[in-house]
């Protein structure tokens, strides 16, 4: 068959009418189908908007469950690789995790609560004025300009306001803790099914994509999914390393509350650019207030700077996927927008969300170049 034929169009008709009649029928059918599709789409959009207030409270636990599932997935896959049934593999991972959390809490809780208690006592007993005096005395010894008494007054007023706000906020925090107890049940429940039936859920979602976009969507879905997984796991590993190193450094410098400060530094490290500064601040403040010696303050700053250097030169380039790199200017803008929308949590998740969106856009552009979608 060596003749040139046009490629058939997807009109789905194979009847034997005369061409003019056929064209009109096909056009009508296409028009009706388009209209039906539009109506369905409009209906779906209205339904989602109407349901949004009801499902909004579900989005946070679902997001947390998805995030944690990404971290646990490789372990479940490893167990499945060893010949264990998927459901049982998820169960085993859950048991190990529950055991680790239990042992960890049992070991760390007395120490942590002691740290919190002494921290609280220090704030209560010494009253804020004394701490400020101490802080000012230490600083003014080193930096003569700070001898101005107005600074002390202003700082103490600010600090009093801050403690009032803290009290108000702590009530909100109690309510938040109570509501977060429901997460303790819902999040693991969701995680179990995401880990066990994740593939089936993915298959179900991708099933609805029309044939012409199917291969493209499948490709997009898998590429974005694996990049997101690598990004989340990489970030978490880097944060754990930073936290461990910070704890070791602070402990060896004899800084109190080293554990809490180290964990904060590790978590804050997930925010690019601002994170390391935010993470180092509590360490520096505690060093000033508690030890009062400039050497330990400088020691803390040097330790954090060294850890940052290691992170930038070694950990992040090796561990975090290079493919989801975002321009520094965009990172700052995205973090600020995230902060405006959802506070500190917004700042934490802004860059990962933007990175995923960037991967999606890149893959969509690639797909439009390589797939014939319009014919």
């Amino acid at each position, binding site marked *: 068959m060596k003749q*040139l034929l046009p*490629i058939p169009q*997807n009109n789905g008709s194979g009847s034997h009418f005369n061409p003019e009649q056929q064209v009109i029928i096909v056009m009508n059918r296409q028009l009706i189908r388009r209209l039906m599709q539009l109506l369905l789409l409009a209906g779906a959009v209205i339904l989602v908007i109407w349901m949004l207030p009801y499902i909004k409270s579900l989005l946070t636990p679902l997001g947390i469950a998805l995030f944690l599932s990404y971290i646990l997935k490789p372990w479940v896959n490893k167990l*499945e690789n060893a010949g264990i049934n998927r459901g049982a593999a998820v169960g085993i991972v859950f048991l190990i995790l529950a055991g680790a959390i239990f042992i960890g809490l049992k070991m760390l809780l007395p120490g942590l609560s002691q740290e919190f208690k002494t921290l609280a006592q220090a704030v209560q007993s010494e009253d804020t004025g004394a701490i400020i005096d101490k802080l000012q005395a230490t600083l003014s010894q080193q930096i003569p300009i700070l001898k101005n008494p107005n600074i002390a007054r202003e700082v103490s007023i600010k600090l009093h306001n801050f403690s009032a706000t803290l009290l108000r906020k702590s009530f909100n925090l109690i309510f938040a803790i109570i509501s977060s107890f429901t997460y303790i049940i819902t999040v693991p429940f969701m995680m179990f099914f995401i880990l066990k039936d994740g*593939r089936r859920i993915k298959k179900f979602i991708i099933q609805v994509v029309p044939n012409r976009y199917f*291969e493209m969507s499948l490709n997009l879905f898998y590429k974005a999914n694996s990049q997101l997984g690598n990004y989340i796991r990489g970030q978490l590993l880097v944060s754990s390393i930073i936290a461990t190193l910070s704890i070791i450094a602070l402990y060896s410098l004899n800084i109190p509350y080293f554990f809490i400060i180290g964990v904060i530094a590790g978590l804050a490290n997930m925010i690019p650019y601002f994170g390391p500064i935010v993470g180092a601040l509590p360490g520096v403040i505690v060093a000033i207030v508690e030890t009062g010696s400039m050497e330990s303050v400088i020691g803390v700053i040097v330790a954090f700077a060294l850890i940052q250097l290691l992170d930038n030169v070694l950990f992040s380039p090796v561990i975090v996927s290079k493919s989801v790199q975002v321009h520094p200017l965009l990172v700052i803008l995205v973090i600020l927008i995230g902060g405006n929308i959802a506070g500190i949590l917004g700042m934490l998740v802004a860059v990962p969300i933007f990175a995923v969106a960037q991967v999606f856009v890149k893959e969509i552009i690639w797909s439009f170049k390589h797939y014939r979608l319009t014919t």
Partner: protein
Amino acid sequence: MANSYWNNIFEKNGKHQLSLDNILRKVPIFSELKKGELREFRRLVHNRYFKKNEVVFYEGEPGVGMYIIETGMVGIYKEVNNQIKEELAILRPGEFFGEMALLDESPRSATAIALENSQILGLFRPDLFDLIYRKPRLGNKILLKLAQMIAERLRLSNAELYELKQQLENSVIIR
């Protein structure tokens, strides 16, 4: 106790799976899979329905996976300037196409069009790679079969190439 309502459903289900298993077993890559392995494998494949004249994929597009025809008919065509130039094959139930895309993302070498309303099973590279990682024994079995099939094709192409070379040399000598 006989219950016509449920009995019917189970029978229908069983029959469908049996025919699906038979179709999968016709494909050399899956011919030696055990019953349990075939069941695991069925979870990976996507069931797609193509209308008559609907394009499965175009030549030059990045390949994502292979297709196995369950019902219907698919034509494979070579294109020149987006126009069909040559019919390469007409494939029927139990036959498959696009299996090279299971290995890499290289462009499709031909266009595939459904010639009838067709039920087609799709097996895609990311799912196969995931299977290789999760169930290495089953994954290796499939990969080995795929490699054997490609080796066989290479052997045939070599033989054809040799024959063509001989013909060319003979024609040069005759001239």
